[in-house]
Structure formats: C-alpha cells, structure tokens
C-alpha cells in the first residue's frame, strides 16, 4: 500500500499540453491567426507547381497505383509512399523563400 501513496500521479497528456506550448506551436498559432499561413500555403502551392514537383509526385502516385491496381490503393497508402521522396525533393530555393517569409513575419509580429 505504502509505495502507491508515494507513486507520482499518472501523467495525463492533456495536462501536459497545457503546461508548455513549444515554440513551434506558438509560431503556428500566430501564423494561422494572422492569416499568414494561408498566404504561405498558396505561395508554396504555386512554387511547387512551377518547378514540376507536383507533376513528379503525380507520376509517382500513378506508378504506384499501376503497380498495385486501382482498387487496392487508398489515400493513406499514397501519402505514405510519396511522403519521404516528396519531402526530400523540395528544391532548396523554395525552402529558402518560405523560411525568409516566415522570418520576416516573425520579426513584424514580435514588434
């Protein structure tokens, strides 16, 4: 009996969250609230189409569906298949541009 009294309380995910939002989360919240996230998403979509990234992902998806058969593929499958290659093949210029935009936003938001 006694050991259980001294046992620390079972950690609750919910309570944990309320304690300390990470920096990433704060930035995300600020981006969404100001509407900047939406603008950045539109910009990102535009850049990824322009550089051919979207077409390449489409081609990967098609190849996968062809291999597996149209009725044996779910959206989840596709996402898992292309995610690693997709993440890796984003051009550096696109990353740089978006990071710059976020930096600019943070500077103006901090004021």
């Amino acid at each position, binding site marked *: 009996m006694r050991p259980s009294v001294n046992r620390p309380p079972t950690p609750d995910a919910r309570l944990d969250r309320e304690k300390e939002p990470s920096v990433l989360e704060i930035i995300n919240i600020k981006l969404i609230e100001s509407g900047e996230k*939406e603008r950045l998403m*539109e910009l990102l979509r535009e850049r990824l189409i322009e*550089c*051919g990234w979207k077409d390449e992902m489409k081609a990967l998806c098609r190849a996968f569906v062809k291999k597996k058969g149209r009725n044996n593929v779910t*959206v989840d499958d596709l996402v898992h298949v292309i995610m690693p290659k997709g993440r890796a093949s984003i051009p550096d210029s696109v990353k740089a541009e978006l990071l710059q935009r976020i930096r600019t936003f943070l500077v103006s938001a901090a004021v």
Partner: protein
Amino acid sequence: MSKQNPSYTNPKPCKHLADYKLRHGLNGFKTLQNCLKTTPYGRTSVSKHKSETPRCSLCFGYQGRLYFCLICSSITCSSHANEHSQSHHGHEIAVDVERAELYCCVCRDQVYDPDFDRAVVSKHFMDMPSNVNGVEGVVEESNKRRRLGLGLELEWKRSKRLISMADRRAKSIFPLGLRGLNNLGNTCFMNSVLQALFHAPPLRNYFLSDRHNRQSCRRRSSDRLCLPCDIDVIFSAVFSGDRTPYSPARFLYSWWQHSENLASYEQQDAHEFFISMLDQIHVKEGKSGNQDKDNRDCQCIAHKAFSGLLRSDVTCTTCGFTSTTYDPCVDISLNLDMSFCPSTGMTNRTTKPNENAIISTLLGCLDLFTRPEKLGPDQKLYCQNCQERRNSLKQMSIRRLPIVLCLHIKRFEHSTIRKMSRKIDQYLQFPFSLDMTPYLSSSIVRNRFGNRIFTFEGDESETCTEFEVFAVVTHSGMLESGHYVTYVRVRNRWYKCDDAWITEVDEGVVRASQCYLMYYVQKGFYYKASEDLSCLPMSPPGGESYLPIAGCC
C-alpha cells in the same frame, strides 16, 4: 458508343458512406456548411473555431492531415482517425479539414458524394459575390449541340466516283492525296501547311465532294478572285492520282492578291499563312456580315472545321469575383513548357536550366496554358465587385473543341525591348493520341474547388475529346533561314512531305522531329477517313517502304 468519361462518373460509395447517407441524409452536410471557410482561389476548408488551431483529440498533433467527424465534430489525425471510428460506433465518415473532402475512417480512403460536393460548392456562392470563380450555375443542363459538319461525311461517298475514274498512271502504290509541291521561291511555309490541310478530313471531304463548285462560283460572283476556287483546283490536282510534283503558282498568286502585305519571296511564317488562309476562306464563303461572336454558326468550311471556343476567367484575389469571357479561336498557341525534368530531379527555375535535361511535352504545354496565372502588379485589373483595380488571377480553358485542333508552338520569340528575335529549338515530345478532357472548361473549373466529382458547366460529353494527330509541320534551321517540312499520317503510315519530295518514314522520325504546328482531328473523323481511302491498295508490308515518288527537281 458510350462517350462517358470515367472521371465524371460517380464512384461507388463504400458501404460506410452509403450507410451514413441512409441514416443522416443531407443533414450533416448542411450543418457542415456553417463550419466551412472559403478563399477567393476556390479552396474550402473546415474551420469550426476561427481562433483555434485544429488538433487531433487523441494525440494533440496539428500537423499532417486532420479529419473532422461528421457525427460528433471531433478532430483526429490520419493515424488516429481509424481509432475514433472503432471507439465510436457509427462515426465512420469524416471531412478532411484542409480540403473539405470526404474520408472514410474505416476504409482509410477518400470517398466521394455528389450531394456533399454540392453542399461545399454552394457555400462558395453564399459567401462570395455572384459569379464567384466564373461558375454560372451549380448544375446545368448540357446544351444541345448542333452536330457540326457530320453531314459532310455523306458527301464523301459521292466523291468516290470522281476518284475511281482518276488517272491510273500512278507508278507508286502510295495512298491518294500524296503529291509533291514545288517550291516557288521560299514557299515551303505554304507547301507545308497545304500538305497538312489536304489531309484534314472535313476540308478534304468538302473540296473533294465538290461542295465548292468552281463553275457556279464564277457565275455567282463577278469577282474573279476566289481563294476557295484555287484551293479546289489544288485538291483536284493532288488527289488526281498524278504523282508528278505540282506547282501551286496560281494559288500563290491568288493568296498574294488577298494578303498584299505578305506578298513577297521572303521566308514567311507557316502559322501566319495558315491563319490568313482560313481568314480568306471565311471572307469568301462565310455569311456576309456575320457578327456572331461565336463562330459556331458560321457556315464556312474553315470555321466548321477549325473553330473552337476559349474561355478566360479573371479572378480578383481579394474578393474572389470572377469575370468570364468567351472568345472563338481557330487554333491554340502554346508556350513551351520548360520546367519539368522527370528523371534527374527538378530543374530549378532560379538556376540556369541545363537544356539537355529538360523534357518538354505537349501535355506540359497544355497544362501551362490552362494554369492559373498571377497577373503582375503592373497588370491590375478592374474588379466589378471591389470597384477598384486589384491583383488578379487569369485562367484559360477550352469551352468547345473544334473538329480539327491546330496546336501552334511558339518557337519564335520576339523581344520588343531588345529588338531581337530568336528561335527556341527545345525539343517537344507529343503524343499521337491526345485526350483533351483535362483542358476543358468543365474540368478546369471543377478542379478549382478541389477533388470534386461534379460537373458545373454544361457537360461537354457530347463532344469527342479524343484526338488523333494527322499532320505535323516541322521547322528546322534558324529564324531567318529555316525550312518547313510536313509529316502526314495516312492510314497509320507516315509520309514526309518536303516540297516536291514525298517519302514514307518511320513513326520514330516523326516523334523525333521539331514540331511547330500540330494538327489533331477528333477520333471519329480520323478512323472514318482511314476507311474511306480504300481506293488504292496499300504498299506491301516490310521491304519497299522507302519508295520516293518524286525527285525530278
């Protein structure tokens, strides 16, 4: 023959979706409308509480795809959506938060429902000023289309009589309609286009069935100049069976009379010639004073064969108001798509693209043509809704396809700033069979709203969207001193028409050529045309396929 395009058919709902609809009908969809947020670009997302970031109720993650349960409104991420449906019976259908698309948590896959799509898109109409994104109605009856020029096919039977009585001096066993054209002094631009037009089914049928009768034309008009008459002469000459190269001198003279500014022995542009020729046919044959904006009603053979309708949508990026205009066209001019390189990774627009690594495709060019284009800050257009000049987005699409589709690749770049012109030699890969469905207005407008299975504008399913190439006009050399050659496809064999020389070539040669003008015809017309050319036997398989039939020059 069913013309149903598979992408428009309603995919079968999974049993969970079917179940959901039985039990809840449209109630959930209607309630969802209150939680939807729309953007001027056409995107819809689920946004229940404007200030909160959506998070998974099980792991509090906010990244990746999140799903909003249609029963209890709780949000789960893709890893936990399935768990939610397991612990809550009946909570199987959810909505992708970022895209407003249906998802089945049990099947772990996207599902489709027309009522859902209707509810989502209606939200756009409610939120935005009228005519948002250029959509004219949620569902429209498909317009009754007059079947253009199919009556011409019957006329072809008549003309068979004329041809079977033709001169059988022909030494070669090439199919009809192949005859060299002499170069009269830098006239390869004219010869190349003429060779292509000889094999355009509607045009060929028209002239060979004597629809433009030279005698009655001469009687009718006092004006001795008639380009269609001269075209008729050439058609008769080319299809007569006589294989000696023909000199289209009279036609050239006639064309000069009509286009004084182009009358010279200088090298001209084949595309410009093509446009001018169609224009001259129209002037002579079309209903005089036909001010109809849509050339659909024009009876001249040029428009019947080549006229299509382009749609242009200009959207204000501030309020989403879209203004739509329709313009008739006889061809589509495409910029070369220089961006895609599939095998070795992407070309970066900022770094100098390695020309060898870029593969441009015709489909890529068509994609580029129909891609939404951000108009620059110096091109702000007036928005009727905002009542001032705003940044805008422009998007082109094809409202109505012509019977014969002429695609022009813009290889000649003229820079007014530097007072220089140059030719773009970039190789362009093109297919022999082309499906134009993704470039139709119905497809383009529909895609603005995400993955919907819904058609908005009058369904163009009546028009055939599958095309077959029948002629390719190629250009080689430099801007000022180049040479045009046409490859024509007759009964699935390719023939190179180089001024007076006609030779059969392998299709690989055609694929490798530098295309400039590509002529595609609706599939139905192509196969019918192939059947009808059964007057002369085909060249034997294998062996002697490289018989030149002219070369006296």
